[in-house]
């Protein structure tokens, strides 16, 4: 008896709730509070003693350790207090407690790589209400809950850089091939598109893109694809691999084959993986953004925000120590710049 009554009550509640047409995705009025942006004084001096806290996606990740090491260097230059905190797991919500703690500790700047662009939003806005400047790096939070975002590279910048390196290594003319990740990898496809547009320009007219192969970001498959490219295109001069897995596999194949020295490998790679191939002459030059510079730039952006030099509005300018002058783009984005190129001269300076 009671069970039936319970079911009836539940059903009735649902019907009533469904019938009275409450708040749905389509008719909700967005009343989220937006921040009033302060006016910036470009001549304001950078403050000393700023408390700048880094919150990476999770601790003990080698890549983000390199990023924050750049931040530590910059905070030292700024005579500020550096701190790094973070969760042990990369779950969407585990960063929130850390943000709350940083609010309580009254930091001046929080530099965060958001695990989830929205989950961190309410607390980041609470931080901003408490006059803390929020800079995102690596992966952005929603743009209405941070002051600036450090973008490591633009699609355009990477595509251009890939085309330029291919031209250099081919010696101005000849056949080139691309060894990409998967056929539907978003980043790689976007970069290849830009590369193709570049290749259509007159200065690239003697360069011929003969094939785009896909190694699926799998070491063995990439290795075999590199092998296949050289068998099908004996006149190939350069393999461009815009993926760290592909470039390492292609370099490994070339370095152990008779093509060594005749066919060049270039693209995006990690210095630690590529070091031996640069040293043995298989690879002359490859590129990637420098993760340490991301953390470095974030510290200066945060300091400029906290000192009132910039407000995060488009067109604001500030100087980021050794990296030079930066201008804030649309939606508070700051682009790090063209990727760093690694050659036999400079590769030993990088460890990541």
């Amino acid at each position: 008896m009671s069970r039936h009554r319970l079911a009836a009550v539940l059903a009735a509640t649902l019907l009533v709730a469904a019938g009275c047409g409450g708040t749905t995705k389509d008719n909700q009025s967005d009343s989220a509070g937006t921040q009033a942006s302060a006016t910036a004084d470009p001549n304001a001096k950078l403050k000393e003693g700023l408390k700048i806290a880094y919150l990476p996606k999770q601790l003990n990740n080698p890549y983000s350790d390199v990023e924050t090491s750049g931040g530590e260097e910059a905070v030292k230059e700024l005579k500020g207090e550096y701190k790094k905190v973070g969760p042990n797991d990369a779950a969407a919500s585990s960063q929130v407690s850390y943000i709350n703690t940083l609010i309580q500790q009254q930091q001046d700047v929080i530099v965060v790589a958001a695990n989830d662009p929205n989950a961190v939003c309410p607390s980041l806005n609470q931080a901003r209400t408490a006059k803390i400047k929020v800079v995102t790096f690596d992966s952005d939070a929603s743009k209405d809950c941070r002051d600036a975002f450090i973008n490591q590279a633009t699609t355009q910048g990477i595509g251009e850089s890939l085309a330029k390196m291919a031209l250099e290594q081919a010696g101005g003319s000849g056949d080139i091939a691309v060894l990409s990740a998967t056929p539907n990898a978003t980043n790689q496809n976007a970069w290849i598109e830009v590369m193709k547009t570049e290749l259509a320009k007159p200065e690239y007219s003697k360069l011929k893109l003969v094939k785009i192969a896909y190694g699926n970001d799998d070491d063995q498959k990439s290795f075999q694809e590199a092998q296949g490219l050289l068998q099908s295109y004996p006149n190939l001069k350069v393999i461009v691999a815009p993926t760290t897995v592909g470039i390492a596999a292609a370099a490994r194949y070339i370095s152990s084959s008779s093509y060594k020295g005749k066919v060049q490998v270039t693209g995006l790679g990690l210095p630690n993986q590529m070091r031996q191939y640069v040293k043995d002459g298989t690879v002359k030059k490859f590129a990637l953004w420098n993760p340490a510079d991301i953390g470095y730039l974030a510290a200066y952006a945060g300091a400029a925000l906290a000192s009132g030099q910039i407000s995060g509005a488009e067109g604001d300018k500030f100087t980021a120590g050794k990296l030079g002058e930066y201008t804030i783009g649309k939606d508070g984005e700051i682009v790090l710049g063209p990727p760093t190129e690694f050659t036999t001269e400079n590769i030993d300076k990088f460890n990541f």
Partner: protein
Amino acid sequence: MSRKFATWDTAIIALTVLVLIIASLVVDNFGTSRNFTFMVLDLLPIILVALPMTFIIVTGEIDLSVASTLGLTSSLMGWFWNHGLSIETIIPLCIVIGAVAGVLNGFLITGLGLPSLAVTIGTLALYRGLALVVLGDGAVADFPFNYTGWVTGTIGGGAVPNVLILIVVLALIFGVILHATPVGRSLYAIGANAQAAHFAGIRVARTKFWLYVVSGAVAGLVGVLWTLRYSSARADNGAGLELAVVAAVLLGGVSIFGGKGSLPGVLAGVVLLTALQNALRLEDVSGQALNIVTGALLVLSVLLPNLISSIRGNWQRRKLRQSAA
């Protein structure tokens, strides 16, 4: 026996009060009203799920699927929202779905007589898997601000978080049922000896079945609150929460073998764990060290009562031997 466990509850409550006082005095920014709000929000999911979990563990069973039920309702909440249902429909619907997840647990455990540990480890994987099927790697975030704002907000913008009302009301209901009604007494009886309880006229299977339904419904509610707090419906929401809940319940003096424990102790256990983590984090203690501290505390919470009782036993035996000689 019962006196010993009463002592453990009191000890945990005293320890919690002590930690709160010391932290307020020693740790900068701990005793502020904003930090109080942050702490309440951090303990909200643990404390709510711990209420039915206490009941279940008191009967000698366990429900490890709660966090996955939370993830499933969070996923579905996002899916429903994307498909144009109103939030006023979605919230009760999610609670019902949580209850249905509990019905499956309850049926497998009491209907088919399978061990709850095995069943709920299975549904832990199953519900999380379903959550991933529903929403994949994606997230739904555009929930209405008047709902997300309510969960993170405070009463009249003051020091008392809105969700504290919910915690107090539910804790009172569960506390009264457990400690002041025949149903509550029967849970202890089941946990102490299910067969004896059966012969005493208690409907053991039926009671346990409803506990799982309630546990699922509460997990569904917490799924909704979690989603609104982080304005993010995701399949991986709340992963690992079941361990935090079981840890707090055991720390609060509930016996994993059933039959013993009290709700005030459990509430103190949750507050103790949350306050300790909060204070240590404010002191910049790293995440790994934090895990070590909570882990050690849990081991101690199991070890100490046993140690005390065995020392007491030895001492009493020796006294008996002396008086005999």
